């Protein structure tokens, strides 16, 4: 029905859409999601053939085929035939769309070319849930929800084949939003709709397919349910994480940096946490991965850690029977279990401090045979006992540079610079006095921050945090957990968080696993 091929659009020098390709089949409701400024409205305007009318310096290339007609090259006459009759749109800026001097009734009848078909208009207003006795009201007398309903009625009254819904539910309260979603769902039955929004809740409720747009190109597309339950692109995951959802207990996390759209390489690379060199140079093509299409050089969010079939026992006591777990880049997996259930043993096995009886450990899909510098550069651990985690003979500076000293990679002055950077990242002072304090001079919270700084100074990708807050009081615990959350957002750190505290687990984790009787099971709490 709608086929978009190599669509690019720009305003002067500013490219907004880049080489967009997708197809919408008859009867589909496709959601296009992305932050503000990713080109959603430009796409809608292009499909409506309104782009050049909206802005004088707009340029468009590629083709938009609607039932075989290319909208990009269509004449004004052809467009007039299609617009509103075949393709209609619910515009975003409600207040600017309705003419303040014309009543609702007349506004709708304008679309019917001035034919005042009372029955049709009343019928439509009823279908969208707009009280028909208020049809003579003027736009300024209506609430936001009512205005939106009028707009929807206007879009649907000609029974078009394709409807573009540009942010139909943003800036509405939840109750109104839900009733509108119901209305749209009913009206769209048997029709094709394109839903452009950043409101993920609406996407989940309305659409079957979702396309994620960033910097004017598709980064991921597929079935809505799949994309929400298992996002593959770091940007998609970032969007889902920043959206407050009723059944998500983890603190909100944003996407690092701000949208700045680059001309070379992957559009997302300036903000991506799993960036490699190729990402800066070549634009990744949209490839099929299972059911979803994905544009990422790394094949989506990379699995950092895979633990397979690990077993361990001490004398006659079996601690781990057959433990499996995995941690992806930028996610927090919590391992929950009572004390003595083998949580720390598993962490120590992963770190190569204890030898398991059997099983394999993979880091970034490579089997670990030897625990060497390259492993420890990518994986770090925070131990449970804060007080003894730093040698009493080392001051703050020595403690933080110790990992770099061991790796012998930098000059002393560089190491001190790095140490100061990490210390400010964990919100500690970097003045001389503080750097020369010894562990026994520091409070529990400060010492824990020093320990975190030590673990971060080698820029690991995976952090194993073994009860990092169990010895801290609640207020300091809250601060440390927030700190870890922020660092994860900034660095894309994968975290294996070990705790016995369910409350903490729910607050920090993307997934919760339970270790019981030597076996890891999924905890259904989220």
């Amino acid at each position, binding site marked *: 029905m709608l086929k978009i091929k190599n669509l690019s659009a720009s305003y002067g020098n500013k490219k907004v859409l880049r080489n967009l390709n997708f197809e919408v089949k008859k009867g589909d409701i496709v959601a296009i999601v992305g932050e503000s400024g990713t080109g959603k409205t430009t796409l809608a305007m292009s499909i409506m053939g309104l782009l050049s009318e909206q802005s004088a310096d707009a340029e468009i290339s590629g083709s938009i085929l609607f039932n075989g007609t290319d909208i990009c090259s269509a004449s004004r006459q052809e467009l007039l035939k299609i617009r509103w009759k075949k393709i209609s749109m619910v515009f975003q800026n409600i207040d600017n769309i309705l003419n303040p001097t014309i009543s609702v009734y007349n506004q709708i009848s304008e679309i019917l070319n001035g034919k005042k078909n009372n029955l049709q208009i009343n019928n439509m207003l009823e279908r969208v849930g707009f009280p028909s006795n208020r049809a003579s009201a003027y736009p300024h007398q209506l609430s936001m929800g009512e205005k939106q309903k009028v707009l929807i009625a206007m879009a649907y009254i000609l029974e078009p084949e394709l409807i573009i819904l540009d942010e139909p539910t943003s800036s509405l309260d939840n109750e109104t939003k839900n009733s509108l979603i119901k209305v749209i769902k009913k009206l769209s039955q048997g029709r094709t709709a394109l839903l452009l929004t950043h409101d993920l809740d609406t996407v989940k409720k309305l659409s079957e397919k979702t396309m994620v747009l960033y910097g004017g190109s598709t980064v991921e597309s597929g079935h809505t349910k799949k994309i929400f339950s298992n996002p593959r692109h770091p940007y998609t995951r970032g969007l889902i994480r920043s959206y407050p959802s009723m059944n998500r207990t983890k603190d909100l996390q944003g996407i690092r940096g701000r949208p700045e759209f680059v001309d070379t390489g992957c559009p997302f690379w300036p903000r991506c946490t799993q960036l490699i060199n190729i990402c800066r140079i070549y634009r990744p093509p949209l490839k099929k991965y299972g059911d979803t299409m994905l544009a990422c050089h790394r094949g989506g969010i990379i699995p950092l850690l895979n633990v397979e079939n690990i077993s361990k026992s001490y004398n006659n006591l079996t601690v781990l029977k057959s433990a499996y777990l995995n941690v992806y880049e930028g996610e927090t997996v919590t391992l929950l279990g009572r004390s003595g259930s083998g949580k720390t043993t598993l962490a*120590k096995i992963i*770190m*190569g*401090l204890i030898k398991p009886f059997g099983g394999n450990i993979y880091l970034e899909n490579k089997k670990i045979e030897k*625990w*060497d*510098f390259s*492993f*420890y*550069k990518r*994986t*770090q*651990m925070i*131990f*449970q*006992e804060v007080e*003894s*985690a*730093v*040698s*009493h*003979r*080392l001051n703050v500076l020595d403690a933080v540079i*110790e*990992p770099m000293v*061991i*790796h012998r990679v930098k000059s002393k002055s560089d190491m001190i610079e790095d140490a100061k950077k990490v210390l400010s990242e964990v919100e500690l002072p970097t003045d001389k006095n503080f750097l020369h304090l*010894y*562990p*026994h001079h520091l409070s529990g919270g400060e010492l824990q921050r020093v*320990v975190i700084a*030590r673990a971060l100074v*080698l820029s690991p990708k995976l952090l194993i945090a073994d009860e990092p807050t169990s010895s801290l009081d609640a207020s300091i615990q809250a601060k440390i957990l927030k700190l870890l959350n922020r660092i994860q957002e900034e660095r894309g750190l994968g975290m294996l968080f070990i705790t016995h505290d369910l409350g903490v687990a729910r607050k920090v984790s993307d997934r919760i696993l339970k270790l019981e009787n030597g076996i890891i099971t999924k905890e259904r709490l989220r």
Partner: protein
Amino acid sequence: MHISVRKNLKKNKSAQAGLVILTILFLITIIAPLFTKDPETFSKMILSEPSLTNILGTNDLGQDIFSRLLFGLRTSMFVSISAGLLATLLSVAIGVLAGFTGGLFDEVIMRIIDSMLVIPSIIILILISAFIKPNLISLVILISLFHWQGGARIIRGQTLVIKQKIHIYSARTFGAKKAYILTRHIIPDLGNIIMASFLHNARSAVFLEAGMAFIGISSLSSISLGTMMHNALEFYYLPVWLWWLLPSGIMLSLVLVSFTLLSNLIEKIIDPRLKDA
């Protein structure tokens, strides 16, 4: 637990006294040749009373007792420090390695130490010395060979404790090699115990050297406080013991007391239960 030896030393008067005495004695041994006569030179003036030329008089061979006293002190200091160092070095090397490596190596070493501790070392030392009449260097080696075991045992135990500490695990998770962990963490953490072990070994070495010289089984070529006391006792019926036996006895006691005072301090540092005792 963070311990500052200097801070503890500031609070402990007797340890300060020990340190002062030891320092003075050490300085004396270094500068002794500057203001003494040749201790070996014989003269016809035998068993003379103290005078301006011979501050502590002369012995039965006409040698200057004061010069011999200072050179005897030199021997004691040399033996104590070098035997102390050598024995401690052996204790640390063997103890730390056994504790850190564990397993069969540890088992074997520990059984060797046990068997050596069972044998009374003084008797063996006397027996060997009687045969080889050791000079200073071989004496130091002999004493060291029979003094590292106790220290090694303690150090091994402590190593076992320290290697389980979280900061050692942390260092391992940074990728630290064994050598780094040993030299930067375990041995520095053992500092106080190594110090105690050194002081203990040094003190016993002084005592052993003097004792063996006293019973006449060490080399006659070296001047020793033990030999001086042995010789002085032959003339106990003359008043010479006042300036011959007494000064050498006092000198030996001073060395022993100063070592003891210092090791008491270290013991208190290591074992906080002794703090208020």
